[in-house]
C-alpha cells in the first residue's frame, strides 16, 4: 500500500486523535499554569507551613515518574472511591506534574526581580499583596516565559502518555492502526511527524510570540 493510500484510509482517524491530543494539551497547560503560579507564590512565602506544603508538593511530583502518577490517578484512586475518567485523570496527572516544575520556574522568576524593585515598593508603602500584583508579577513574565516555553513543549510530548490510560489521542490511534494493519513505519512515522508539526509550526511560534509580547510590555524589546 502506498503512503498516500495509507493516508487517505487512516488519515481521518489520525486527525481525530490529533484533535484529542490538542484538547489534552490545552487543558493540561491551563491547569499547569494555574498550579505553577499558586505553588510558586507559596514557595516564596515567609510562612514556614505554607512554604513547607509547597516544597513537599514540588519534591513529591518531581521525584516520581509522570507515568507512575498517571497510573496512580487512573488505577489507584478508584480504591479510595474517586473514579476519574481517563481524560480527566490524564489532564490532572500531567497538569499536577508539570505544575511542580512550573512552580520552580515561577519561584526563580520572582527571586530574579531586582531587589531595588522590592525596596521601592516597600518605600512607597505598598501592601505585600499590592506589591506582588502591581510590581513583581508584571516583571516576571519576560524572565519565566523562555523556560516555561520549553516546559510547554515537554508537556506536548508528555501528552502521548495519556494513550496508556486509554485516552483516544494520536498515540492511541497510531497504536490501534498499527495493530490492525501492521504498517508500523507509516503509522508511527505519521504520528511522529504530526507531533513535530504541532510543536515546530504551531506551539513554538505561539510561545515565541508570547515572549516578545511580554518583553515589549515591560519595555525590553530585546530578549
Amino acid at each position, binding site marked *: 500500500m502506498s503512503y498516500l493510500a495509507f493516508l487517505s484510509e487512516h488519515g481521518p482517524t489520525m486527525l481525530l486523535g490529533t484533535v484529542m491530543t490538542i484538547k489534552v494539551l490545552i487543558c493540561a497547560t491551563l491547569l499547569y499554569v494555574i498550579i505553577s503560579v499558586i505553588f510558586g507564590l507559596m514557595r516564596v512565602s515567609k510562612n514556614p507551613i505554607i512554604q513547607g506544603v509547597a516544597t513537599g508538593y514540588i*519534591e*513529591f511530583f*518531581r*521525584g*516520581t*515518574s*509522570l*507515568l*507512575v*502518577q498517571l*497510573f*496512580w490517578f487512573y*488505577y*489507584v484512586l*478508584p*480504591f*479510595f*472511591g474517586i473514579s476519574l475518567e481517563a481524560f480527566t485523570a490524564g489532564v490532572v496527572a500531567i497538569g499536577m506534574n508539570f505544575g511542580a516544575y512550573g512552580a520552580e520556574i515561577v519561584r526563580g522568576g520572582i527571586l530574579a526581580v531586582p531587589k531595588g524593585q522590592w525596596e521601592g515598593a516597600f518605600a512607597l508603602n505598598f501592601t505585600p499583596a499590592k506589591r506582588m500584583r502591581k510590581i513583581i508579577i508584571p516583571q516576571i513574565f519576560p524572565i519565566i516565559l523562555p523556560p516555561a516555553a520549553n516546559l510547554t*513543549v515537554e508537556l*506536548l*510530548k*508528555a*501528552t*502521548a*502518555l495519556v*494513550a*496508556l490510560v486509554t485516552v483516544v489521542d494520536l*498515540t492511541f490511534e*497510531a*497504536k490501534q492502526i*498499527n495493530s490492525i494493519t501492521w504498517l*508500523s*513505519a507509516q503509522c*508511527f*512515522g505519521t*504520528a*511522529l511527524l504530526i*507531533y*513535530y508539526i504541532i*510543536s*515546530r509550526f504551531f506551539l*513554538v511560534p505561539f510561545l515565541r510570540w508570547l515572549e516578545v509580547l511580554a518583553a515589549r510590555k515591560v519595555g525590553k524589546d530585546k530578549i
Partner: protein
Amino acid sequence: MNAEWRWDFTFEILPKMLWATLNTIMAAGIGYAIAMVVGLIFLLGQRTPFKIINMINREIVEFIRSTPLLIQLFFVYFVLPQFGITLSAWVCGMITIGLHFGTYLSEVYRGALEGVPKTQWEACRALNFSTIYTYRKIVLPQAFPIAIPGMGNYLVGIFKDTPLLSTIGVAELFHAATAVGGYHYRYLEPYTIVGLIFLTLSIPAAMWIRKIEKDVNLAQGKIKKEKV
C-alpha cells in the same frame, strides 16, 4: 475493591519489586552511557565547519527533541523488524533512550563549551597552543564543571522516564508492578510502592546533584577570585 492497605500483600510483592528496581537502575545507567556518547556525536555534528552537516544535525536534533519518547520507542520497536533487524526490547529501549537524551546532552555540552570565555581561546592562540592541547588542557577542564548540573539533571530525567520501557515489554520496575497488579487484581500497593521507590531514589539523587552544583559554583567563584 476496598481502600484498605494490605501489609501482608505488600511484603509478599516487595522482594519482587526490589529486584525489578535493579533492572530499572541498570536501564537508566546503560541508557545514560549511550546518551553521553550520542550527545558527543551530535556535538561534533554541530561544530564541524561544514554548513550542510550543521543544518542536517540541527534538524535531526530538533525532530528528536520535539517528538514524544513513547512513540519513538514504538517506532524503533515495531519498524526495525520490518527491515529485517530484530532487536530485543531491551536493546530497542536503550537505543531509543540513548538517542532521545543524547540530543539533550549535546545541548548541555554545547552550553558548557560556550560557557568558557572567549578570551581563554584567544590566550591559547597567543601562546601558540595546538587546538587539541587547548581543548585538553584549557577548555575541557573549565567546561566540565559547567556541564555537571545539566548532566546530572538528565541522569535523573532518564531514571524517571524508564517506566516508559514497560510499554514495549522491558521487565523493569513499572512492568513488574503492572504484572503483579494484574495477577492479583490489586493496583493500590504495587503502584504506590513504585512511586515510593522512585521517591526514595530520585530525591537523594537530586539533592546530591544540587550539592555538586553548589560546590562547582563555589569552585568557579574561587577561580574568579584568584584572577582578581
